[in-house]
Structure formats: structure tokens, C-alpha cells
């Protein structure tokens, strides 16, 4: 029996009927998203490998085909997380909370990838892992730690309703604060360093078509990966909630605890 069919037959009929009915098309959609993501990823990797060397950076520019798309994908994911958080507070729909949490978790992953590839690129081009002059690097790191806190808050609240409300509130507070943090760090840099830093950045040059194509392919791949991972994460959250419910209803507290074997009473 395939895992999908087994899980659908295991569901409790009263609460899970609707989900059971839609499970098969949904899991097929998730699988096809995954396959599409893999295909796009392969295409993106091939195009990145065959792109010409960049004029000033040479091989280093190839790192930007993973750095820039992951940054954009992270923004999309965190943005989706915030929109769904607001949606949750308006409608109180548990699904919105699950999607919000999944999007933010995957967004944190992409933020980490952005930071790591940025650091590797920096070591490569600037000679140091971390550049205090780069405001975006510093503010992205702050953002990363804030969302790590968000995930930690999620993990430490067990009541789903309390968790959903508090995480939605934190998401909105972050949404208001993060631009302020970002601009303050930007300001910090402009007040302390010369206003113009000439550096081999994509933003400073008009990009050649030879680089636009692999960048676009990588971006498409990352967005597909994002969609796949979020879908899987939501499904996982639903399954784990069902497991928790089943455990709390079918088994009396302490049922799994027995006297140590070999103990004579």
C-alpha cells in the first residue's frame, strides 16, 4: 500500500472527511510541483554552469545565480507569511496560520542560504567573510535572528489558538519594525562611510542578457522549490496535529508508562 493511501484510510472519519476527500489530488499536486522544481533546478544549474565568465568578477558571478534568487525567494516567502498572518487575525482561519508558519520557516531557510552564499561571495571578492560596510548584509542578519525568534516562539506554545494569535501578532510587529531596522542600518552606513562604494554589484551595472537568462531560470526554480517546501510543510503540520489529537484522545494519560520490567511488587 502506498503511503498516501494508507494515511487516508487512517484518518478519523468525523473530523477529517473533507481532507480525506481532497488528499489525493492535493498530494498529486505537491508531487508534480516537486518534479517541476527539480526540472527547473536542473535547467538553472545547467544555464549557470554554461554562462560566460563575468568581466570583473570572473567565476565569482556564478555565485550570484544562487545568491540573488534565494534573496528574492526569501522576501517572497516572508511576505507571504505576513500576509497570511494578517489574514489569520482577520478571519481566524487555522489554515492561514499553518501557511503563514510554513512560509516563514522556509523563508528563514532561504534567508540563511542568502547570508551564507553572500558571505562566500564576499570572501571571494572582498577577501573577508563579513563586511560591516555592507548595510544589507547586516540588516539581513538581524532579520534572520528575528525570524529565528519567531520559530522559537512557535515551538514553545502548545495551544494552537494561542500560538496562532501570538505568532500572527509577532509577524505583524516584525513587518512594521523590519523596514525601520533595515533603514536604520542603511543610515548607519551612510553616516559613517563615503556615500558611494564602487563594487562589482549587479545593481551597479546594466546586466547582460547572458546573465539575465540563468538568473531568471534560477529564480523560477527557487520559487518552485519554495512552493513545494511550503506545501509539504503545511501537510506535515496537519498530519502532526492529527497525530497529536489521536494520541490525546485514544490513549489515557500515563498508559504508556508501566513498572520497570523485572520489578517484583
Amino acid at each position, binding site marked *: 500500500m502506498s*503511503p498516501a493511501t494508507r494515511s487516508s484510510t487512517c484518518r478519523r472519519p468525523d473530523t477529517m472527511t473533507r481532507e480525506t476527500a481532497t488528499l489525493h489530488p492535493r498530494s498529486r499536486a505537491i508531487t508534480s510541483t516537486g518534479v517541476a522544481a527539480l526540472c527547473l533546478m536542473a535547467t538553472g544549474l545547467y544555464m549557470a554552469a554554461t554562462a560566460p565568465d563575468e568581466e*570583473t568578477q570572473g567565476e*565569482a558571478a556564478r*555565485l550570484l545565480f*544562487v545568491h540573488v534568487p534565494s534573496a528574492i525567494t526569501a522576501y517572497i516567502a516572508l511576505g507571504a507569511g505576513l500576509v497570511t498572518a494578517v489574514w489569520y487575525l482577520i478571519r481566524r482561519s487555522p489554515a492561514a496560520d499553518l501557511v503563514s508558519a510554513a512560509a516563514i520557516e522556509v523563508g528563514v531557510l532561504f534567508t540563511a*542560504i542568502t547570508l551564507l552564499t553572500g558571505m562566500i561571495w564576499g570572501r571571494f571578492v*572582498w*577577501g573577508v567573510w563579513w563586511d560591516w560596510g555592507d548595510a544589507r548584509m547586516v540588516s539581513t542578519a538581524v532579520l534572520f535572528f528575528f525570524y529565528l525568534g519567531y520559530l522559537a516562539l512557535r515551538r514553545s506554545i502548545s495551544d494552537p489558538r494561542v500560538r496562532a494569535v501570538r505568532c500572527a501578532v509577532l509577524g505583524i510587529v516584525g513587518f512594521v519594525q523590519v523596514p525601520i531596522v533595515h533603514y536604520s542600518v542603511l543610515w548607519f552606513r551612510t553616516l559613517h562611510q563615503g556615500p558611494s*562604494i564602487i563594487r562589482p554589484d549587479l545593481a551597479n551595472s546594466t546586466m547582460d542578457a547572458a546573465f539575465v537568462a540563468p538568473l531568471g531560470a534560477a529564480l523560477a526554480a527557487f520559487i518552485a522549490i519554495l512552493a513545494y517546501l511550503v506545501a509539504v510543510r503545511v501537510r506535515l503540520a496537519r498530519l502532526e496535529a492529527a497525530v497529536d489529537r489521536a494520541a490525546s484522545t485514544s490513549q489515557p494519560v500515563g498508559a504508556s508508562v508501566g513498572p520497570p520490567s523485572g520489578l517484583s511488587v
Partner: protein
Amino acid sequence: MAARAPGCFADRPLVSEAGMAGSWVLFGYLVAYGALAIYAGHQAYRLRRARRRLPPEI
């Protein structure tokens, strides 16, 4: 060649000048796609575990 950002250590050799470009690019790709693969793998593992734990009697 690549410009140094202000505040960088002037005595650090640039990797791009050391002729190791390819391996650093590979390292970057390995880190990025490795992180994605680890996360996806962990999700798949948790998914399987959750399915196993759904008691069959209900």
C-alpha cells in the same frame, strides 16, 4: 579586478586572485543546495514518521 569594500583587511589575499575560483563557486552551490536538500530530507522523514504514528484503528 574585484574591488575591496572599505573596512576590509588590506592584507587579506583575495580568493579570486589566488586562482581557486571554481572551487569557491562549487562550495557556494554545495552550501545552498545542500541546505535545501537537508531541509527537504528532514521534512520527508518527519512526514513518514507522522504517517507511521497515525494509529491505524481510527
